[in-house]
């Protein structure tokens, strides 16, 4: 790693404490060479109203997605994005954002598809930084372009496709959407725009564990003991078997993916980014309606 990890005591309980930094650590490392801070929010203008000094903005929708195909950037496009944002391959990238780091973990997950080595989350995100009265600026950085290598995206390790999920049925699946979306009463988040799934419900056998259960009021992650209670004790996600998480378009489930993979240390966790907008519109895939997980369909 380019820069040493945050040794704050509260982080040491997690499986991979080096994936988190505290607000204090970040405040002390804003000018450390090799540290790049990335803000990723749901609201595309929030960064522009004031952001952590030196932070660059990466928008999940307009910058991480291919503009035409429903897919992420390819290796060439990612290298160009990194160059524009002034990020080098050996930089420590610290992500933060609004809404308990929901979008920050999404950006981190996409960076992980390109295996960017040192990616970290600011525990508590934007809200905690502001609540502590720390410095914000409207001054946009002008990073010097970097020479980021073209790394092909690896979709086989952290990402699941619909076909993978079909083969996975019977093994642990986590549906991180709201209970109303899970049961099929509605196909999108309460008060959120409809994103076009034609059917409501959930993937058979999926456990309903809304993503925000993993976050405290102040946006930080819950303690390891609390997380183990929620995922392992209450829902049987022990890590003995591979896990797939999904939501509506793969953003909320990135938060859960981060929790399972980096905080609880489960090796094999994938995010199904097609999620309900794909599954709920696909032809002849099994769906369960109601609040029970349901049975995996018999193999043909």
């Amino acid at each position, binding site marked *: 790693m380019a820069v040493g990890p945050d040794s704050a005591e509260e982080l040491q309980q997690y499986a991979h404490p080096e994936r988190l930094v505290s607000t204090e650590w970040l405040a002390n490392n804003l000018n450390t060479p090799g540290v790049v801070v990335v803000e990723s929010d749901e609201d*595309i*203008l929030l960064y*522009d109203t004031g952001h952590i000094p030196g932070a660059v903005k990466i928008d999940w929708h307009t910058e991480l997605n291919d503009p035409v195909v429903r897919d992420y950037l390819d290796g060439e496009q990612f290298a160009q994005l990194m160059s524009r944002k002034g990020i080098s391959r050996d930089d420590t990238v610290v992500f933060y954002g609004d809404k308990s780091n929901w979008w920050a973990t999404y950006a981190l997950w996409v960076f992980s598809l390109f295996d960017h080595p040192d990616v970290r989350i600011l525990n508590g995100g934007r809200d905690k930084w502001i609540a502590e009265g720390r410095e914000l600026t409207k001054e946009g950085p002008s990073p010097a372009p970097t020479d980021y290598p073209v790394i092909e995206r690896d979709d086989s390790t952290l990402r699941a496709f619909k076909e993978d999920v079909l083969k996975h049925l019977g093994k642990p699946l986590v549906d991180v959407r709201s209970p109303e979306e899970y049961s099929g009463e509605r196909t999108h988040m309460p008060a959120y725009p409809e994103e076009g799934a034609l059917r409501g419900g959930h993937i058979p056998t999926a456990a309903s564990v809304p993503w925000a259960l993993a976050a405290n009021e102040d946006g930080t992650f819950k303690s390891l003991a609390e997380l183990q209670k929620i995922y392992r004790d209450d829902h049987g996600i022990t890590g003995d078997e591979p896990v797939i998480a999904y939501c509506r378009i793969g953003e909320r489930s990135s938060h859960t993916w981060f929790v399972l993979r980096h905080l609880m240390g489960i090796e094999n966790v994938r995010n199904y980014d097609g999620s309900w907008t794909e599954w709920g519109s696909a032809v002849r895939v099994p769906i369960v309606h109601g609040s029970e997980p349901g049975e995996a369909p018999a193999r043909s």
Partner: protein
Amino acid sequence: MSEVDTLSPGLPQALAEIREDFLALSISDRLQMLLEFSESLPEVPDGIVPDDAWEQVVECQSPVFIHVDTDEDIPVIYATAPQEAPTTRGFASILVQGLSGLDRQAILAVPGDFPQSLGLNEAVSFLRLRGMSGMLSRIQRQVAEAA
């Protein structure tokens, strides 16, 4: 009677000018202009809109509420959205300012695709623009119901 836009009949002058201003800018400057709109969303004075009169725009990602006061010939549009939701505030501000002073017929005549015509698709994505369409259609519905 407002002048009509030759490209889009029914678009009142103020909205046509807002659109021209957006389209004249680069993509990143369009975002800056949207931010300026968000900062100039008129505050709604306390007590002027009864609590139960606010209608939530559920198409938006953030809690935004609108109310159209239709007691007079010229409807008055009110909107509130949190500071943490500048994009949504910007959309609301464009509509509140662009529809200000128009009579019912003029408000109802605004084409439903106005939000998509501002050149913001690339800048903010079509998903987010749906919120603005939701606001416009709810404003028009409230005006139509009062007619």
